[in-house]
């Protein structure tokens, strides 16, 4: 006998009650999700990476016509600005317009790629070029999906640059895609320095276009237009990467106009930076501290430097 045929089969709760019960259950479930796996790097990060791997190609397919038509939008804008003379010329050049637009797009793309190649670190570090294919730009999350991933050597934490400056860092890596958290994201914290004063601060994103300079420590007063660079503190990014320019916000706080905002962030370079051992490079044999077997061959330490080993001191002197 089925439940429907029994005495309970006659009970039909009002539809509104059922809907309210479902709503409460769903709210509990969503709350549990947020509390349990709510962190962006929590236990569901593998699922997130898999999802990125699925939406990445879809985003790439959607973004391809966007990139192709990007120059056309610019050409339309230039047309309206040029006025009536262009209107007359347009009739003559109508047949050539499509070729011109295509040429402009290619030239612009070429120039930006050249600029991207010109942005180098000192010493040079390996980089991977990528397109950004999806873009989250709401107040609660600022991130992008780039079409280069673990297959190209990208790992979590790698800094990401545009042709003008630092964009953010990699927070999730799939095989062919990687999730880039922008400097404007509410979770973004980056140690920076003020180039003029060598002061330090933490660049703190808040979902707006201009992240805030928090925990500002500088002897001299910060000035509008001061250049902000990565400080290298904490090993988050190499020292000296361009970040932006200091501006006073409407709220009275010091904020940063990001260099990366100067152009659309459609091409990025992912810096394959893991730690400072890459920057320091390997020590030469004469820079290595001497071992116990070397001791008899080296002169005895001077009285002013008890216990000091000359080869170690030489290595220290060679260190910048």
């Amino acid at each position: 006998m089925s439940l429907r045929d029994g005495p309970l089969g006659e009970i039909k709760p009002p539809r509104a009650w059922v809907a309210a019960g479902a709503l409460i259950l769903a709210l509990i479930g969503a709350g549990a999700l947020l509390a349990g796996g709510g962190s962006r790097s929590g236990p569901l990060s593998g699922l997130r990476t898999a999802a990125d791997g699925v939406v990445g190609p879809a985003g790439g397919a959607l973004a391809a016509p966007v990139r192709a038509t990007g120059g056309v939008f610019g050409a339309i804008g230039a047309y309206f600005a040029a006025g009536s003379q262009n209107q007359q010329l347009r009739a003559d050049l109508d047949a050539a317009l499509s070729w011109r637009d295509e040429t402009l797009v290619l030239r612009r793309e070429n120039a930006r790629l050249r600029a991207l190649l010109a942005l180098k670190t000192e010493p040079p570090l390996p980089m991977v070029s990528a397109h950004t294919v999806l873009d989250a730009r709401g107040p609660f999350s600022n991130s992008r999906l780039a079409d280069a991933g673990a297959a190209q050597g990208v790992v979590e934490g790698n800094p990401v640059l545009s042709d003008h400056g630092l964009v953010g860092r990699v927070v999730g890596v799939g095989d062919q895609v990687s999730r880039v958290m922008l400097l404007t994201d509410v979770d973004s914290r980056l140690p920076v320095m003020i180039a003029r004063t060598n002061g330090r601060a933490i660049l703190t994103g808040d979902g707006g276009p201009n992240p805030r300079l928090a925990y500002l420590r500088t002897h001299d007063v910060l000035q509008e237009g001061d250049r902000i660079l990565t400080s290298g503190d904490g090993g988050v990014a190499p020292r000296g990467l361009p970040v932006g320019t200091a501006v006073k916000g409407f709220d009275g706080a010091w904020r940063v106009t990001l260099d990366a905002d100067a152009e659309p962030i459609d091409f990025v370079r992912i810096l394959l930076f893991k730690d400072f051992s890459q920057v320091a490079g390997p020590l030469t044999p004469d820079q290595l501290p001497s071992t116990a077997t070397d001791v008899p061959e080296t002169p005895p330490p001077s009285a002013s430097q008890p216990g000091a080993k000359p080869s170690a001191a030489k290595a220290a002197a060679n260190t910048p």
Partner: protein
Amino acid sequence: MNVGRTRSVSPAVWILGPAAAAFGASLVLATPLQVGGLQLPEPVFAFVPAFAWALGRPSMGAPFALVVLGVALDFLWHTPTGFWAVCLLVTYALTFFARRILGGQEVWALWGAFAVNCAAAMLVGFALTAFRAGVAPSLVGVGLQLAVSVALFPFAWRLVERYEAATPGF
């Protein structure tokens, strides 16, 4: 006699269709397109079904569909898992409990209710983010996203009308 009640609305049409459309529209607008140097806005399309489902016909499946849709948006936009599910359910719950009041109201009043419910959801999102990240999100950004989301009300109204002009098949 309502001559419009001839077409049957299945759960697929009422739940799956709008959910897929909302996610698809979000995916399309997630492309990094700039027009005139300005980025496109990022409206929350999922507010549309959240409002319409609660107003048109609350059902057992709708809240769970919103959870799935919310988690999908979390993965797309890289927000914490469950964040948008909670926000969408806030909109759904407010509309659901105000359903008797909203029934038979003019379109402009419903638009106002949609705006209030979306604002409540964004406020919850603001509080959750501020609590978790320790930084208050930009109010300008929240306001912009709310404004472009509220502008989507005609889609919600169209969805409700579509239900009213059809026979529920579930």
